[in-house]
């Protein structure tokens, strides 16, 4: 079975705490996602995402606080806007936009964290290894 490589960016306040909760709850989920803890999802530069794809990531997951709950008031809205544009750009670059996913996961949503990781892993597994041809 194809085991995709997935890079994730989790905001410190919500999603990373949600991932910790999944851990303390001893939930089981797919091991393909490796997370990087950033202060806020809005720290994620589209270039980091593209760089991940360029270096062989099959998928990129970004986790932030729910709308209205951002620790930095508006950070997650910035992320939302950027991800929208980035997905268009990915289509232009011939990367399936489904390979990038933005999810709102709160510190209380351990179960949701596990589910998102499993779903996303399954989806990327179905999409197969990334075929990236430089322009």
């Amino acid at each position: 079975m194809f085991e995709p490589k997935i890079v994730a960016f989790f905001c410190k306040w919500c999603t990373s705490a949600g991932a910790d909760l999944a851990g303390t709850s001893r939930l089981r989920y797919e091991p393909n996602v490796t997370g990087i803890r950033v202060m806020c999802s809005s720290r994620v530069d589209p270039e980091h995402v593209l760089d991940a794809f360029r270096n062989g990531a099959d998928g990129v997951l970004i986790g932030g606080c729910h709308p209205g709950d951002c620790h930095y008031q508006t950070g997650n809205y910035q992320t939302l806007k950027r991800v929208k544009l980035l997905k268009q750009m990915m289509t232009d670059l011939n990367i399936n936009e489904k390979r990038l996913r933005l999810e709102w996961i709160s510190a209380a949503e351990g179960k949701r964290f596990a589910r998102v990781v499993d779903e996303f892993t399954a989806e990327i597994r179905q999409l197969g290894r990334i075929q990236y041809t430089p322009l």
Partner: protein
Amino acid sequence: MKRVGVFVCHCGINIASTVDVSRVVEDLHDYPGIAYIQDYKYMCSDPGQNLLKEAIKSEKLDAVVIAACSPTLHENTFRLAVQTVGMNPYNCEIANIREQCSWVHKDRTVATEKAKRIIRAVVEKALLDESLEPIKVPVVRKAVVLGGGIAGIQAALNIANSDYEVILVEKQSSIGGRMAQLSETFPTLDCSQCILTPKMVDVAQHPKIRLLTYAELADVSGFVGNFKVKIRQKARYVDWDKCTGCGLCIEKCPQKVASEFDQGLGKRKAIFTPFAQAVPNKPVIDCDNCTYFKTGKCRVCEKLCPFEAINFVETDTYIEEEVGAIVVATGYDVYPVLNMGEYGSGKIPDVVDGLTFERLLSSSGPTGGEVRRPSDGKIPKEIVFIKCVGSRDPEHHFPYCSKICCMYTTKHAMLYKHRVPDGQPYIFYMDVRAGGKGYEEFYQRAQDEDKVLFLRGKVSKLYQDDDKVVVCGIDTLSGSNVEIRADLVVLAMAIRPSKGIEELAKLLKISIDQNGFLTEAHPKLRPVESLSAGIYLAGCAQAPKDIPDTVAQATATAAMVANLFAKEYLLHDPIITGVDEELCSGCGLCVAVCPYDARKTNREKGLVEVNEVLCEACGACAAACPSGAAQQRNFTDEQLNRMVRAILTT
């Protein structure tokens, strides 16, 4: 290259049962950048920490990565430990291989591989971490309190008693606020003014408090510890330095106007103090109603004043002050009866709101404490109280509970019964919420001793019929319709944040919630702070609350202010995003995404400048910067890219 040491914790079996720790150590031994790697059973234990410190010294490590539990647990522990051997704490990083690895996977090989990926990524970060020092910001140890009701008074007194200077700003000419309007207070029935006025006098006499009444906040800039406030002193047309408060002008003023303090029931003059015990007890001229201002004739007060204190040409002035903290205690207004179509839209004179009834009960009120109804001055024999008017009605008005009505309505009925022993009070209620010390007992007393009749149900309409107000309601406990021909109806109207709160919130850059109240930083753990550092919230501006809760919250704000002022400098987390002047083109993209106004475009220099104190380190600007000039410290593009690659290399 920096020498990075890695310490892999077993956490007993918590990590070691799924992650093959010795395998991790072996595999990463030759990873470029790792100068030293070791595992240990419990890194957080004293021996674990000693081992860490020893290794830093003996191996001459520049940075360490502790592969263990979540950084929320022991990041601080390890950072303190490395500091003791001279390492900058920002060179200590945590790789979370427990919550995000060993606890969520079963397969040993898979978990071990993932742990290695996590550690490699964090090592890459540590290699480029800078040594950072907390940013030091000097604090102006003076506070401004906005609002001179019980919340503002309490906050100001407590801050001043901690020996810090306070400016208390009140928009009316006297402090006292809503509490000064109340008759007696639940559940002890002590007279509101009797317990409030001594505090008002304390404020006026306190050497550390500067009292600015008839004034309001005009502008604010700056940040925690260093605010600049501009306060508008409204024209009083009376020189308070000369005025002795003798009251001759008030006595002789020919113009009478409905008194706001008496909720329109009594009259005041055009030159007036809102109530007899006002602090300061000096009058102002209400220029909208003054005969001289309206017709150009009169000037009676000017002629009579023995001290030549009247000054008709006075204008608004502005006072600028630097303060370190702001307390917002602007209080509440009563939702107008006008909005209640089913209760006569305010057109029936004997249907009044609760605050108006307070004035009818107050011994300093327009009726001298006798309960006389507004229309004809008769003493009401049957009186209906309706609770939850506008509150708990998400469809038409407000979803929230106004919190104080259950208790004050019970008090109203009780006080009425004390004044009119042969009268009958009825209370229509949805629920009785008597949570609070002595509250339930108070409610029971109203029923048992004072024979207040509680009817569980809503009133669908009321109307004037001859000299009665007919109240049509339902008693849901007996399931029957109830019609009461009342002499007076008192509506427990919803309470609203006071008028102008939106503008004030905008000025202070703090947020308001969906119901218009100021938002606290955290509903449970930070209930007296706003989301902006250095701005604190007290009283009903934040949410409806009674006097004890208000006093408690106000005292808490004072504690927060004293906490802030206790240090000469504020320490600010240094992982802020700066500007590389060589790379910055001054495009301003980062300025637009900053939620804290920490970044400003300097057009002259063609650069963006950063106020490091305001930066909260989200990094949104760093992601927006097209040139790489904005780099978040210890979260640089280079670091993040290397972390990504470290995860992807096999």
